[in-house]
């Protein structure tokens, strides 16, 4: 008989010893097997948004930002490509068969996120790709048009994931 207790799961096994050892008196044997709960069974899963099956491109010249965002997006199940420069991001356009969304910083040397957006919109195959802007200089770029979402840095993680899911769904439905 298998049961659950506060200590874990246990199994009660009952039998007649005379069947095992002929000649002995009939004796009911109770065996109590305590099984400690496995670590996996007791660990509460993290309450993370679901981004599985998505390929996301994170573009930021700040290593810490891109590392941190990529780590969290991967923890949510996404396949994450990291680009430290917009030029590297453009390289991914040519080499990556599937891309679901771009999350880009705006203030970057050589090419800003706004310029990167223009390149995306002019691209023959990627023009409808959702592009999410992240910036610490929100006021400077408040007039920037064309982004599918515009989020302030440091970003609220749930807000970012929610924007990604919403935009990817919207793109698929059109």
């Amino acid at each position, binding site marked *: 008989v298998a049961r659950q207790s506060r200590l874990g799961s246990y199994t009660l096994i009952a039998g007649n010893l005379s069947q095992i050892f002929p000649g002995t008196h009939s004796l009911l044997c109770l065996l109590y097997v305590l099984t400690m709960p496995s670590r996996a069974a007791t660990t509460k899963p993290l309450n993370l948004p679901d981004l599985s099956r998505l390929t996301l491109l994170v573009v930021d010249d*700040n290593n810490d930002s891109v590392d*941190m965002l990529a780590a969290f997006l991967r923890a949510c199940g996404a396949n994450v490509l990291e680009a430290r420069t917009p030029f590297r991001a453009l390289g991914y356009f040519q080499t990556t068969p599937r891309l679901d969304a771009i999350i880009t910083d705006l203030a970057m040397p050589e090419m800003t996120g706004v310029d990167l957006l223009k390149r995306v919109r002019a691209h023959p195959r990627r023009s409808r790709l959702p592009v999410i802007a992240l910036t610490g200089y929100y006021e400077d770029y408040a007039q920037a048009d064309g982004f599918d979402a515009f989020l302030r840095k440091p970003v*609220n*993680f*749930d807000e970012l994931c929610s924007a990604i899911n919403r935009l990817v769904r919207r793109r698929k439905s059109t």
Partner: protein
Amino acid sequence: LPEHAAVIAVLILERPMCLECIASKSSLSIAEAEPYLQRIGLGLELLVDEGRCRTCGEPRTVFSLNRLS
């Protein structure tokens, strides 16, 4: 990545935690853990509050990632 930063970020993902506990759980000294928190705060919205640490129970400055409820 800075694996420590990822570990710390996950530690404070669901519960406010004091610097002492963050350091202890990520196998760092307090002096080492603090810069990682600053780096996390550059990219992700970090809440710094006075409250009870959900790990040790002490009333201290606690850190958590801001989540939408």
